[in-house]
């Protein structure tokens, strides 16, 4: 188990290094000169050179890479040139909002998808199963930015039930959370259903039946735990979709999270903030998947007890 944990942590560190390097390379490909962007067209050549020197742009690429990596480790991504504050400070302000949104969406998705998946699996190929499977297929195909717009139109503009923008009240969280949770609900419902159906054919379920256990007891002791173990991994990966969905959803609802910060920074070409956003999101994703892997190992004795 300890060896497994160490290997997973090393892999996570490696992946974070890779992500940082990729971001460094991509941002250095920018055709526009960042110094020129900051100083503006009216700047003299001397001013530009001074700025480049200050930003370290005149140093050899490897030196730049080294100081960039050092910045990643210490959380220093330079200053936002539009707002003249450290990029990390902007990210730190936006991150809790996104975290709250993601947490609510995952929680809501679990609460909704669990009973749906169980009911569909228990009544497999019956009408209720058909409705649930077809429904989740449709929901999975819904473009999240479009469903956000449609929900805005219905609940905010037409019915005037819910506010549309920012983080002024708990109610303003309902629509973005729903939009973020929908694809996750569809995915989890399908996974729980197919996981339970698959487990249902396993020998130990028949053993439990032969022991005279009732179907509900079998479902909630023997079936659920085995069905959930592989699903946990997918939930971890689904966080990636969730964080990506947050970029779109936050833009639609002008929700002050890290996704909206990323998109607006891209539009004004504020690359230090873009870097900070991307690396922080990727780090969150890697961290979540690390936790998921450890949870997986804890739940499955075959992994936990492997030498």
């Amino acid at each position, binding site marked *: 188990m300890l060896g497994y944990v160490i290997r997973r942590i090393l892999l996570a560190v490696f992946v974070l290094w890779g992500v940082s390097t990729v971001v460094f390379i991509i941002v250095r490909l920018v055709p526009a000169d960042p110094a020129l962007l900051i100083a503006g067209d009216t700047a003299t050549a001397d001013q530009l050179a001074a700025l480049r020197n200050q930003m370290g742009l005149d140093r050899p690429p490897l030196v730049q890479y080294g100081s960039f990596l050092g910045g990643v480790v210490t959380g220093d991504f330079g200053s936002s040139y539009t707002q003249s504050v450290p990029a990390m400070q902007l990210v730190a302000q936006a991150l809790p909002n996104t975290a709250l949104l993601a947490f609510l969406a995952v929680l809501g998705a679990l609460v909704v998808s669990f009973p749906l998946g169980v009911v569909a699996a228990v009544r497999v190929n019956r009408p209720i199963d058909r409705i649930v499977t077809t429904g989740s297929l449709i929901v999975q195909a819904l473009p999240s930015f479009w469903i956000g717009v449609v929900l805005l139109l219905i609940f905010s503009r037409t019915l005037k039930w819910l506010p549309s923008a920012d983080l002024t009240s708990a109610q303003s969280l309902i629509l973005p959370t729903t939009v973020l949770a929908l694809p996750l609900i569809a995915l989890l419902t399908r996974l729980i259903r197919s996981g339970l159906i698959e487990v249902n054919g396993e020998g*130990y379920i028949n053993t439990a039946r032969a*022991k005279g256990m*009732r179907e509900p007891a079998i479902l909630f002791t023997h079936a659920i735990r085995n069905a959930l173990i592989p699903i946990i991994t997918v939930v971890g990966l689904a966080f990636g979709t969730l964080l990506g969905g947050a970029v779109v959803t936050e833009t639609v609802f002008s929700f002050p999270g890290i996704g909206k910060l990323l998109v607006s920074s891209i539009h004004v070409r504020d690359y230090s903030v873009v870097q900070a956003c991307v690396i922080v999101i990727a780090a969150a994703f890697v961290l979540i998947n690390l936790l998921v892997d450890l949870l997986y190992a804890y739940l499955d004795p075959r992994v936990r007890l492997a030498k």
Partner: protein
Amino acid sequence: MTEQLVADSRRAQSPLLSVRDLQVEFTTSAGIARALDGVSFDVQAGETLAILGESGSGKSVTSQAIMALLPKPAGSIVGGSILYDGIDLAKEPVSRVRDLCATDIAMIFQDPLSSLNPVFRIGDQVAEPFRRRLGMGKKEALARALELLKRVGIADAERRISNYPHQFSGGQRQRIMIAMAIALKPRILIADEPTTALDVTVQAQIMRLLAELQAETGMAMILISHDLGVVADSASRVAIMYAGRIIETGGIREVYDHPQHPYTKGLLDSIPGAHAMGEPLRPIVGSPPNLLDLPAGCAFHPRCPIAVPECRAAVPSLREPEGAALGHHVACIRAEEVRSHD
């Protein structure tokens, strides 16, 4: 044929389990398969009945039908009865049959690894019948589980009770399965290919354990196998199945020494060691029939060395051929010729 079996005066006492004309169908995307077609047999208290056949012959389906374990919704009992203790299990709702599982009829399966839940300690799994069915507390149930594990020969049971299934060998896993099955002292134990997944040396140990337990508890056993050798020493009677029917049944020595169905004879002839040295083995030609498209008449006739045109005309029913021992029934119109070929 039912009349013949009922008239069988050898059995004065009424059987513990009586399967009558059982019919099971499976719905597949390619059509309906009649997996069992008119299967009848009795199990007396304390005796061991072996059910033999190739895969697809219906032997496992028979046990699934008794335990209400037929895969839903594909498989269902469409006719016949399974009488146990005055109750027809074929007509009862599944939940009612499950109440009898473990306390009256228990079962062990072919693959002991997949039959044990990988994420629970084996102690908890063996204790489950005590806790769930008898409502015992956890401590007491685990103490009973420990006793059982010791009884089935798990070495160092005090420590190993908290291990997980993947930490045991195949033979040990089957011992754990047996411990679980006998926990509530069932009157009948169905063993579905209990040794097929095991090494030959371990096979013998498991069969010995089953025989010992049977002697101690007096439970009846239905031993399902495809291996004629495995059951030879422990079963008193045998039923041979082919394409969803019992084609020959009787005392095991009688059937093994004087097979009267060409299929049984073929099976016995294809066992290595059953012949004089140097004589080639004689396998049965052809392959088992497709249940979706059974041959007309006797299902075995396309592979039968002594088939005649009449074999295609009608499905032969079980009968007691001339010269056969009491209780030896064969479903072949040429049973007398098979015997005379000996």
